């Protein structure tokens, strides 16, 4: 996956790859917390499979990030040996799972984003990014099909399931905007043709979720307030540290352990 990289662009590209990989890593971990706890067996298996796809994508993104960083680290080192302030995932993805409806609502909000972003990345000027996106976009397409279907099923379901899905959307909506807040890293990636400016994805995203929420009889909150600080690592929520104590437990208890 060798692609010539100018040293000046290395730091920006690394940040971009960490954002991609940390998103799938942190959501993959959150979703895996459901393993053995889902309301029915089929959903348990579906959640575990989704988590597995996300962790697989993480290996590709962070594996390439390690290659770009070129300082002897591996994808595992990046996942297990960093602390909260080094993570670059969206705040949305580190929030606790809540109930099953909230988990699937978050999944849909993220799947919808990935299903729009990844096909654009397939046209990246960076060959490795394009190849990872090609692989991941097939999985994302499958994920959004399921999460959208579940959001519709539960939103337009019983009174209780509708109430819970609306509560989940109200709770998570203030975290959606962060996906589209552009900064210097995004500008550098857009200028180099590596990735689109995330702000340019918003219209398509709003159209997709608008269609699904209409069918689900759910109302998008009338507020554009946005929590941010995950993608740039400036202000994570208090939940990320707790997540890492679980995810990184083995390396913290037995530093350097391998098998």
């Amino acid at each position, binding site marked *: *996956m060798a692609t010539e990289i100018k040293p000046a662009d290395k730091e920006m590209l690394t940040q971009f790859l960490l954002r991609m990989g940390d998103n799938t890593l942190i959501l993959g971990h959150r979703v895996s917390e459901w393993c053995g706890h889902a309301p029915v067996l*089929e*959903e348990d*298996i*579906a959640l*575990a*499979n*989704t988590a*597995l*796809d*996300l*962790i*697989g*994508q993480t*290996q*590709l993104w962070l594996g390439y990030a390690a290659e770009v960083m070129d300082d002897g680290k591996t994808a595992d080192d990046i996942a297990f040996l960093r602390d909260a302030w080094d993570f670059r995932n969206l705040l949305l993805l580190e929030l606790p799972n809540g109930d099953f409806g909230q988990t699937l609502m978050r999944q849909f909000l993220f799947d919808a984003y990935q299903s729009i972003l990844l096909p654009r990345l397939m046209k990246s000027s960076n060959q490795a990014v*394009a*190849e*990872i996106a*090609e*692989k*991941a976009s*097939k*999985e994302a397409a*499958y994920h959004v*099909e*399921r999460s959208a279907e579940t959001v519709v099923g539960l939103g337009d379901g019983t009174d209780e399931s509708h109430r819970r899905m609306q509560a989940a959307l109200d709770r998570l909506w203030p975290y959606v905007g962060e996906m589209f807040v552009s900064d210097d890293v995004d500008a550098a990636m857009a200028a180099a043709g590596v990735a689109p400016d995330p702000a340019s994805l918003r219209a398509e995203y709003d159209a997709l979720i608008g269609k699904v929420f209409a069918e689900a009889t759910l109302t998008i909150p009338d507020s554009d307030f946005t929590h941010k600080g995950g993608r740039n690592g400036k202000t994570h929520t208090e939940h990320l540290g707790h997540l890492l104590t679980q995810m990184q437990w083995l390396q913290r208890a037995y530093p350097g352990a391998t098998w």
Partner: protein
Amino acid sequence: MAAARLPGRNVVTDREHITAGPTLPDVAQVWDWLHAVPDPEIPVISLTDLGIIRGVAYEDDTLIVTVTPTYSGCPATSIINLDIETALRGHGVEKLELRRQLSPAWTTDWITQSGRDKLEAYGIAPPQPAGGPDKCPHCGSQLVEKMSQFGSTPCKAQWRCTACLEPFDYFKCI
């Protein structure tokens, strides 16, 4: 998309290797050996049936086997690599390198016809472009319904036959 194999039967470059020390197996022979390596999760089909072996070639005297993953997180991937290595080393291949290829991304179109037949005989409905099984692999009824988009491995979904009432795996079409 029979591109899965149709391997190097017409690749004659191995002749030049014959003079260089021990004889290297020709590429067609290597493909034949790989035909016999079962998928670790669905042992009824081979790795070549699955269409994940993307290339067999020599670079100097090193045998390069190029493999593409089915799903990026499929836990079988590392076992598959181990099985390929074990099989080929067992046939005396000494210099071997496995390469991962992500693009073009694996598609179920690369599963061979014989692979599809073997899946169905085993009770797994083969992938269909329509996005669901065309019939129950047990009784042949077309009265089937989806139970879950996911199944026992990343590549499968769970369906059920409403005629014979048996649940079955469906190989997802991607």
